[in-house]
């Protein structure tokens, strides 16, 4: 405890040095006017002008990559990967790199505010005492059933704390939501895992050691589950094993960045992933000579070929390749699972792994064991969220606390969440930014950003071992923000009584330390014999994890039984929107740079070109050259995209690697709030999605059809590439 307090003071002192150094970054002539301000008392291990490094965890997506942040005199300068961390292995993605711009973002909320009229954007600053009073009153004066928490996807200390509080109060456990989870179809994958292996978590695919990888729409080098982990695995798949070059086959209607790196890319018809997997499975089973029952029995390969657009020869060749290779893995990605038959597709694709019995093996599929801090809680399904919306509409929810997600922006407009919010008497947002959801709240009590925060995160998306990642502030908070855990705990303590007894933590750090006690004496990357050592090592190393890779093998026999009982005739994918009126499939995918859109106000993320289109600072709609000719549109034309659920305007990018019956729009832009760099830029395609669900109760986000009409207006997209240099006159008049 005392250590924590001294640490806070120390960080404050660091901040003082920052003022001078900031002034130093001006132009040369001004340096004469600089004043130098030495510390009143020198913090330990800080030397003027010398970097100090802190290990923490990235909060730009829920993957939980370990970071090492370089700080100089109290300023966070550069984000680097934590080399010891099993997820990031010393590396970072673009979003992680830009997290310093989240920290120092000029549009962050500077203090707790009250918004007298929702949506007005007129904020009245309020002292934190009053802010805590608001939370305290809300918790104390309302029926526990009428209090709801909506949290982000991260399985972090805050989720655990809120779970404890709600349990103690008798309220419902927090809802968990994030666009990345929705667009990864995480719940569907987890549900498949539960059905097949009885394991309520995400599987881990050992791409790194696979000779052959079949990816069904998994954009694992971009945003899928844990991009840094899987990108590292991709690199090792190609060149990690001497003498072996892994072979990647990608099935998806629109070439993703991952697909662009594949050795073979098949633009299959949206919704036919399950059919392709079934056909491949049947052929594989035939090749390796095992009897087919259930799912892979009586598969009409010719029909599958016809439906999907993959030729029969290719199917045979691919099946041979899969069957004959030593290490092979099939990945059920978001593109395959985002349909109304998504759960079936997940089973069929996982079925390929089960057929070749790669479970728990090198280059196969494994499961992550449960950590000492308890299991991770999976995201809420769309079913859960729709029931929340219903409760909000019927007035059963009196208080809604929202943290770590931006549902007004991230949930499809058709879900009715934004409207339902109007029926909740008290909405409290903990967002660090004035985002779309925060703008609909009565109070915004901004949390610290990731680099200023304490915490832990249980890595749940992908790692090769149990991984707990630590968060610690690398700088003193830039704004007058306060940790949400501290706010909740302060409110709970003020309420007192039973609740305070059941949630007895003084503050956030005390809570984290209490949770970590289970790790004392545990053998891992390090072993600490007492709590203080553990805490010191925990902060220094950046978390706690096993010393060696350790995953568990799923139970094969059970899985085989499930597959054998599964009938082979699967329902076809259903789509919203009549084919005659809405002739095109809409594919929305998280932007590789902006992710779910929370980074859209980081200028360097905006300026980082999209890997496939090289577009910066905007979003676009990808249209195949044939379709563009047919519609009479060309690059930079603004078109109106209409679905049964809504309509947006988007700028055309004629994209040579997409099916002519499909259009694609990245998610992440189209903010109406958040800040100066994000606002009024591009479109938010989630507005177009109709509410369609798969068997696991998840959003079938690829099940909406759209139509496109030219508007006659143009907007020049900022591209890194030169259109003529890259495309030449390949598409003739399109480029005039």
């Amino acid at each position: 405890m005392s250590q924590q307090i001294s640490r806070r003071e120390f960080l404050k002192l660091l901040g003082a040095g920052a003022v001078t150094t900031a002034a130093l970054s001006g132009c040369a002539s001004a340096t004469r006017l600089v004043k130098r301000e030495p510390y009143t008392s020198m913090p330990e291990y800080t030397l003027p002008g010398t970097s100090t490094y802190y290990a923490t965890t990235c909060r730009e997506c829920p993957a939980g990559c370990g970071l090492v942040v370089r700080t100089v005199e109290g300023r966070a300068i550069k984000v680097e990967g934590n080399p010891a961390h099993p997820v990031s292995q010393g590396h970072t993605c673009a979003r992680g790199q830009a997290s310093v711009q989240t920290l120092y973002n000029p549009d962050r909320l500077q203090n707790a505010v009250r918004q007298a009229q929702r949506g007005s954007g007129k904020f009245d600053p309020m002292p934190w005492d009053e802010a805590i009073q608001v939370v305290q009153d809300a918790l104390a004066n309302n029926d526990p059933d009428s209090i709801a928490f909506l949290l982000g996807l991260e399985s972090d200390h805050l989720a655990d704390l809120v779970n404890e509080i709600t349990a103690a109060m008798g309220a419902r456990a927090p809802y968990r939501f994030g666009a990345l989870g929705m667009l990864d179809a995480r719940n569907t994958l987890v549900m498949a895992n539960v059905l097949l292996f009885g394991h309520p978590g995400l599987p881990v695919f050992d791409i790194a050691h696979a000779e052959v990888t079949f990816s069904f729409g998994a954009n694992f080098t971009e945003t899928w589950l844990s991009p840094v982990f899987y990108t590292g695995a991709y690199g090792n798949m190609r060149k990690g094993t001497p003498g072996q070059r892994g072979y990647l086959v990608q099935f998806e209607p629109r070439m993703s960045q991952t697909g662009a790196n594949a050795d073979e890319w098949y633009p299959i018809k949206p919704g036919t992933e399950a059919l392709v997997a079934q056909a491949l499975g049947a052929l594989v089973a035939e090749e390796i000579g095992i009897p087919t029952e259930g799912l892979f029995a009586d598969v009409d390969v010719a029909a599958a070929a016809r439906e999907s657009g993959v030729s029969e020869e290719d199917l045979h060749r691919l099946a041979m390749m899969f069957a004959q290779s030593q290490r092979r893995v099939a990945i059920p990605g978001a593109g395959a699972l985002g349909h109304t038959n998504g759960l079936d597709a997940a089973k069929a694709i996982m079925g390929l792994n089960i057929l070749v019995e790669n479970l728990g093996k090198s280059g196969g599929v494994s499961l992550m064991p449960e950590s000492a801090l308890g299991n991770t809680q999976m995201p809420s399904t769309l079913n859960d969220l729709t029931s929340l919306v219903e409760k909000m509409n019927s007035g059963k929810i009196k208080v809604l606390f929202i943290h770590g997600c931006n549902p007004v922006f991230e949930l499809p407009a058709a879900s009715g969440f934004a409207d339902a919010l109007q029926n909740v008497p008290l909405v409290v947002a903990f967002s660090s930014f004035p985002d779309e959801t925060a703008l609909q709240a009565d109070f915004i009590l901004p949390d610290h950003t990731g680099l200023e925060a304490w915490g832990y995160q249980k890595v749940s998306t992908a790692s090769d071992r149990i991984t707990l990642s630590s968060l610690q502030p690398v700088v003193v908070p830039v704004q007058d923000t306060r940790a949400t855990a501290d706010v909740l705990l302060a409110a709970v303590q003020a309420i007192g009584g039973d609740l305070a007894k059941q949630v007895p933590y003084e503050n956030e750090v005390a809570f984290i330390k209490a949770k970590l006690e289970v790790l004392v004496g545990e053998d891992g990357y390090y072993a600490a014999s007492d709590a203080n050592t553990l805490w010191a090592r925990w902060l220094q190393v950046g978390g706690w994890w096993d010393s060696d890779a350790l995953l568990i093998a799923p139970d094969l026999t059970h899985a085989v039984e499930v597959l054998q009982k599964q009938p082979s005739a699967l329902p076809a994918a259903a789509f919203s929107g009549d084919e005659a009126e809405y002739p095109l499939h809409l594919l929305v995918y998280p932007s590789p740079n902006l992710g779910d859109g929370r980074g859209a106000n980081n200028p360097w993320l905006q300026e980082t070109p999209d890997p496939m289109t090289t577009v910066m600072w905007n979003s676009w709609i990808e249209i195949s050259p044939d379709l563009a000719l047919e519609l009479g549109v060309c690059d930079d034309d603004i078109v109106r995209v209409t679905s049964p659920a809504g309509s947006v305007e988007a700028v055309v990018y004629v994209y040579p690697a997409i099916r002519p019956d499909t259009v694609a729009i990245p998610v992440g832009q189209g903010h109406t709030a958040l800040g100066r760099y994000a606002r009024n830029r591009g479109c938010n395609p989630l507005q177009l999605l109709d509410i369609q669900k798969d068997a696991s109760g998840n959003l079938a986000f690829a099940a909406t059809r759209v139509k496109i009409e030219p508007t006659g207006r143009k907007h020049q997209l900022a591209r890194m590439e030169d259109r003529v240099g890259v495309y030449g006159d390949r598409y003739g008049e399109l480029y005039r």
Partner: protein
Amino acid sequence: MSETAQEKWGMVIDLDRCNGCQACVTACSLENNVGFVGEESAAYGRGMHWIRIQRYWEGEYPNITARFRPVMCQQCGHAPCEPVCPVFATYHSEAEQINVQVYNRCIGTRYCANNCPYVARTFNWFDWEWPEPLNEQLNPDVTVRRRGIMEKCTFCIQRIRKGEEDAEAEGREVADGEIQPACAQACPADAIVFGNLADPESRVSRLARSARAEKLLEELGTETKVIYLKGGSSRDR
């Protein structure tokens, strides 16, 4: 005149590992105080990226694929940019055997950029802004360039210098892998490897001897210090 350029720092980029994810681009920009310019300027070829990932298409739909190649200053041993600068703002560093740009010496003729076959140089068309408190993030080891100055990838010279200085102060040689530019450090696929080409045992030297090694526009005789390892053959099965 035509002696082979001396070797020191070099970089190997494995195109088979590279998947075009852009982490290097962002990492570079944030390490080196590279300014961001906004949509309009970016649309008009004024992005300041020191490293960019070229994406070329191969084939026609449906047999189409994309190729990625990160391109930054190739640190030529015989650099076309060097002789044309009238004030030695860009010159060949004898000590480091790389191509150095001295910002405070640059007068902005932009001749070097015209003469760079790799289009590796960017020019500060304006004074870029970092609205407070974004400026707190600026790296104190790297000069913030004002308008009218040419800039380019430096192989993170500030990190090279720091590594050398640390090693010298501790009385030892620089260890292989100790010095890493921001791009190599960030690369999640581990495609970028940096090190001392003069040391035959360094990781970068060993990779540079690969049969897949090639240099960009090698026919120009620029003796570049960036070596690409050719990507996998995706189309020939």
